[in-house]
């Protein structure tokens, strides 16, 4: 008889052991899949997961890919703790990229130390404004923030499309829907000589630390947590639900907007109709992988970013189809979430007591 019972005590390392087991199980399952395709599992795994990282270039690219995931992941972790389900980070990211990019284009070819901060501010405010809409509708009309924020994502993507087809289109670009390339003063500095890892990653780390501080030390963080755990308890304590909703969506919107402007100025270098391969949605997974701990978002973001790089490496060096990325990610999530059960529960073999 196999039984699952609650642990009397959970220790801090249980969580790490669970993660370790999950990684082992993922590697084992992927090995079986690779072997069934007639590939040598060990060398294939090395090619897929290790080789993308064995150069400065590879690490730099990993950081570039992880930057928006971590930035948004931290914001969502805070919001989800408060029970505010902001599913529209993707739209807030797009608005951030659009507004920040518009500022960059407005000051095109103008140099000055103030240009970059202004662009970042513009992007952050754009995302903030987009996050404020579901917050207002929730507070005023009790409209479901999941639906409103999700639907606004499509509005944002279409708005970006209209802008790059029209007002922000490169005047010398043969009518193609792309903006001019940003000039140097409107481009975030790179961290390394190779790859595209940029200053945005440092901001992401700072956000993760700040986020932890908010959760652990600030009264606001406590208020948000209590509201998330029990609305009636929060009410009893005199906490203001509306304030929590506003804070969660403004933080989510502002930071997603920041991630968007960092992505266009650090990574792409111009506005295009398609600035995000669903970072805003993937960041939801990242936030939950990190169990909504802002600091844990860092490794979670890096891991998910690696799974994308691994998918490309698999296609390039092994000729496995693109769907393999999704298989890696699916397995990884499945095992990580599955083994999380072991943190609070344990499996016992034996007879029923």
């Amino acid at each position: 008889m196999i039984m699952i019972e609650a642990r009397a005590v959970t220790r801090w390392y249980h969580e790490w052991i669970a993660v370790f087991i999950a990684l082992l199980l993922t590697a084992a399952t992927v090995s079986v899949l690779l072997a069934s395709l007639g590939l040598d599992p060990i060398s294939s795994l090395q090619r897929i997961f290790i080789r993308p990282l064995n150069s400065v270039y590879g690490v730099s690219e990993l950081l570039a890919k992880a930057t928006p995931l971590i930035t948004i992941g931290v914001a969502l972790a805070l919001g989800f703790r408060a029970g505010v389900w902001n599913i529209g980070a993707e739209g807030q990211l797009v608005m951030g990229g659009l507004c920040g990019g518009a500022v960059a284009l407005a000051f095109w070819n103008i140099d000055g130390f103030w240009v970059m901060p202004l662009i970042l501010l513009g992007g952050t405010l754009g995302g903030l404004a987009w996050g404020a809409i579901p917050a207002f509708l929730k507070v005023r009309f009790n409209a479901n923030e999941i639906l409103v924020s999700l639907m606004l994502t499509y509005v944002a993507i279409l708005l970006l499309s209209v802008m790059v087809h029209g007002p922000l289109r490169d005047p010398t670009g043969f009518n193609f829907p792309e903006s001019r390339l940003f000039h140097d003063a409107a481009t975030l500095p790179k961290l390394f000589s190779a790859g595209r890892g940029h200053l945005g990653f440092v901001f992401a780390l700072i956000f993760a630390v700040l986020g932890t501080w908010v959760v652990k030390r600030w009264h606001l963080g406590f208020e948000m947590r209590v509201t998330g755990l029990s609305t009636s308890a929060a009410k009893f304590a005199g906490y203001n639900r509306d304030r929590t909703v506003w804070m969660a969506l403004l933080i989510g919107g502002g930071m997603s907007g920041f991630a968007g402007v960092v992505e266009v100025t650090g990574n792409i270098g111009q506005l295009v109709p398609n600035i995000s391969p669903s970072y805003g949605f993937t960041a939801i997974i990242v936030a939950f992988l990190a169990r909504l701990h802002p600091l844990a978002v860092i490794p979670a973001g890096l891991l998910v970013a690696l799974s994308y790089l691994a998918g490309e490496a698999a296609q390039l060096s092994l000729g496995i189809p693109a769907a393999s990325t999704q298989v890696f990610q699916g397995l990884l999530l499945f095992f990580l979430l599955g083994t999380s059960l072991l943190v609070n529960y344990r499996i016992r073999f034996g007879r029923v007591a």
Partner: protein
Amino acid sequence: MFGFRYLTALGCFVASLTLATSVNAADPTKVGFVYVGPVADAGWTYEHDRGRLAVEKEHGDKVETVFVESVSEGPDAERVISQMAAEGADLIFTTSFGYMNPTIKVAKQFPNVKFEHATGYKRADNVATYSSRFYEGRHVLGLIAGKMTKSNTIGYIASFPIPEVVRGINAAYLAAKSVNPAVQFKVIWVSTWFDPGKEADAAKALIDQGADILMQHTDSAAPMKIAEERGIYAFGQASDQAAYGPNAQLTAIIDDWAPYYVRRVDEAMNGSWSSTDTWGGFDTGMVALAPYGKAVPDDVKAMAEEARKAITEGRLHAFTGPINKQDGSPWLKAGETADDGTLLGMDFYVEGIEGSLP
């Protein structure tokens, strides 16, 4: 080309050394392809992949090909392209317009790797561009449509208002008008290259507005299926779509990249590759037509074949004056043909087309 660079930079000795190693190398030439969609069974990416397979077939073990599919045109493209270069690709084809700036950026970091970007306009010493004169095919489609429509209404599903798409609409309209002065075009812009749902909706809307022939500049087979269901005609796009509309398809424009890919890989292997701007039509085999459908009468077939031949031989240009712009201002004088520069930047409708560009 870069032999010269080495000569000046490092002297004769090094140059001869690099030359020697590159000739001696028994390694196969590695050719990479970056695709915007999944390879699938039809459409844009499918045709590029057929080109890749043709390269493999032609050059056997002298080449090794790799590809990465479904690479979004956003930030991921640059990483995929440069990873491909870092993994030792000698020649890389990036097959979507949105890869233009990423290709140029990566090409700067890998001066010894050759790049080919489809449908763009930025080149460098190691970046060539290529595209097809699809408008030549559109001309033939326009002739057939003009002859065969009963309602005198042609429905056109367009993607984005970039010159290539606008050119296609204009070319088809002018050809249709030349054989049927009463013909009208209704255009719906769907703002996507591939979205079966949206394309199907557009097809239904066009049919409800009286269109009895559909043309599309989007990639899915959805409009063809709708045409088949509703018992009207349509033209396939990028690939032969007869499988989706055995009765509906009149013909299809096929993007045949194989001859170009085989030739360019050949040039890369024998050292004669250089950065060029290729814009090939019927004459190069890059634009082809699918077999005419059962519904096309013999006289229409003969007319279409004659036009195809005349374009191939250079006797006919799809844009031959007199042509006015939509606002009535003159564009081409009688007998004058459009120059490539104007065609490449075309951002206006010709006279007679209703509506405005988005």
